[in-house]
């Protein structure tokens, strides 16, 4: 790994990934909608670790700009971590189409759009690694967040297809499925420490999966077993549950 592109660099997991990759002397391209916010990260990591960090504007929700965005990157990354996503307001999205399309676009359409471009380049170069942050919410639709969940389900299926296609070109595709993540967003929500990953811990687990060239990884690992159970609840029971 020489240069990693982090798409959606302002989230706390993305920042933790940047910190930990920088400490391993990986050069970084940090892409986010609000470039202003990550300028301090750029100075910090380049001063502390002597690596090259560049900061570029990127809007996941605007696919028409994605091809140009990627073409203008010099040098090209050999690793891409697609972190962006948008939880949104599920209840509002049920009646507000704009909120609903933002959820679908940020979590699925936008990711497909940029990764299509990158996948073609990596396939030609016969190298590289693509890491996508999907979600356990994509494994089974629940009444409380199935719009987000269905977009993430689409993204999970996309990554699995991409992995299948790029295997013969030597490109590694990793699907990361976080459960709860402790962030400044998780306001007032009480979550179990056994199910909630600190951003630093999540980043460390993701980097370990990259090191071991894993295909699919749950963060935290307990979620693997929880989702195994959740996937196997018969639908006639599942539909009655308050989830």
């Amino acid at each position, binding site marked *: 790994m020489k240069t990693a592109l982090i798409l959606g660099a302002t989230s706390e997991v993305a920042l933790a990934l940047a910190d930990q990759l920088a400490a391993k002397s990986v050069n970084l391209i940090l892409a986010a909608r609000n470039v202003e916010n990550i300028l301090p990260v750029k100075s910090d990591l380049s*001063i502390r670790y002597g690596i090259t960090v560049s900061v570029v504007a990127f809007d996941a929700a605007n696919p028409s700009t994605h091809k140009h965005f990627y073409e203008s990157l010099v040098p090209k990354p050999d690793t891409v971590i697609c972190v962006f996503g948008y939880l949104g307001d599920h209840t509002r999205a049920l009646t507000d189409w704009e909120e609903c399309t933002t959820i679908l676009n940020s979590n699925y359409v936008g990711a497909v759009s940029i990764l299509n471009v990158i996948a073609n380049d990596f396939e030609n170069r016969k190298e590289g690694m693509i890491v996508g942050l999907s979600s356990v919410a994509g494994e089974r639709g629940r009444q409380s967040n199935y719009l987000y969940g269905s977009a993430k389900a689409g993204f999970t299926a996309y990554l699995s297809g991409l992995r299948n296609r790029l295997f013969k070109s030597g490109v590694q595709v990793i699907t990361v499925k976080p459960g709860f993540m402790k962030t*400044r967003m998780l306001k007032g929500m009480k979550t179990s420490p056994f199910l909630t990953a600190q951003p630093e811990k999540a980043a460390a687990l993701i980097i370990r999966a990259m090191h071991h060239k894993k295909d699919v990884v749950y963060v935290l690992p307990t979620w693997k077993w929880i989702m195994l159970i959740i996937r196997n609840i018969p639908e006639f029971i599942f539909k009655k549950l308050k989830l």
Partner: protein
Amino acid sequence: MASDLLTNWNNYPIEKSEVSSPVFAEDFYTQLAESSSFIVRGNGRCYGDASLSPHVISALKFNRVLNFDEARGILTCQSGLLLSDILDLIMPRGWFLPVTPGTRFITVGGAVASDVHGKNHHKDGSFSQHIVSMKVLSPNGEIVVCSALENSEYFWFTCGGMGLTGIILEVTFTLKKIETGYIKQVQIKSEGLDEVLDLFEQYSHYTYSVAWIDCLKKGPHFGRSILMLGEHATIPELNGRQHVYPKKSKTLSVPFHFPSFVLNGLSVKAFNSVFYAKNYKREMHSIASCESFFYPLDAILHWNRIYGRKGFVQYQFVVPKDRGKEGIREILTRISNKGWGSFLAVLKLFGTQQGPISFNMEGYTLALDIPINAKLFAFLDELDIMVKEYGGRIYLTKDARMKAEIFHSTYPNASRFTSFLSEIDPEKKIVSSLSRRLSIK
């Protein structure tokens, strides 16, 4: 926002707080606009309630290095950066902190807000002396760029202002050039209090000086102590040690609350091992790593838990030089007669004062830890009056119990400070438990 029980280094008081942890500057603007009142917290290394309040904004995630001019030794960073992180960055490149307290686990914001001092105060002043400029977010949402030359009133009330003038966002300060990561150390034993106070004068040309006093010794050897002096070592002085910058040593952690005799036991041992060293010499010369010279207690993480659950206070006061000897002797006698205090007290000589609201003044300062008991606060109130009579004062960042009246009558610029604060923060947006207790806001 999570609601937590928060307490600072001395485990007293413990308060329920909502804590939010901004990552970007704009998060602070949002917090300022949305919250009714709050205080900013660094790494919670103060001994009391200065960074406690029902709503706390933690600066710890706001910790990026913004610029490092390696040729001139000037660093700019966000306020939540820890001094330990700064040392990791600058020491291998030949720089050191201009002023450092006895722990490296504090933030730059905390260093400014308490205007911290080190063992070199008599030579180099306190932290504020080395600030080139800083950016403070005022309670009304304005960014104030300030320094000793620009917006100087804002600057001086922010240094030592205990976080009450606004949110310190960025600080630019100068560093000290070093050749190695070692200190040329001299330890001098003294058999009594007058002797050690004279030694401070005699050796005031040394950059670093501090004395550890045995508080239990009575009679003719009352105040027996070890004066520690230091200078940064040059490469030739290392006599061929392998690394010019020592590798970081491991730290030990104290995992739970201990009864207090354990710590006293430890410090008694450390003190006696020097005092009664086999090759008894009055003066001992050695080379010590910066880590062990400046931060001996950092080697044991969470040593504060050793004092048990009730917590402790650190009593630190300063008395002016002219009657300093008398003051230190009288107050130390009172403390040692009670026998509640820790075995060791730390004594330092201060140079002249910088900021109008800073703790430092030319004189002697003494600090010691005392575990909390039912009669302690009444006793400390009596000591406060003695400190006041000697023209001295108590260090706010170490205080958890002083009466408001003592603060207002011992800090000469207290009323200027409070009227400045009511001018810039009429709605009392930035308030801490300390500022309420001491009727500052």
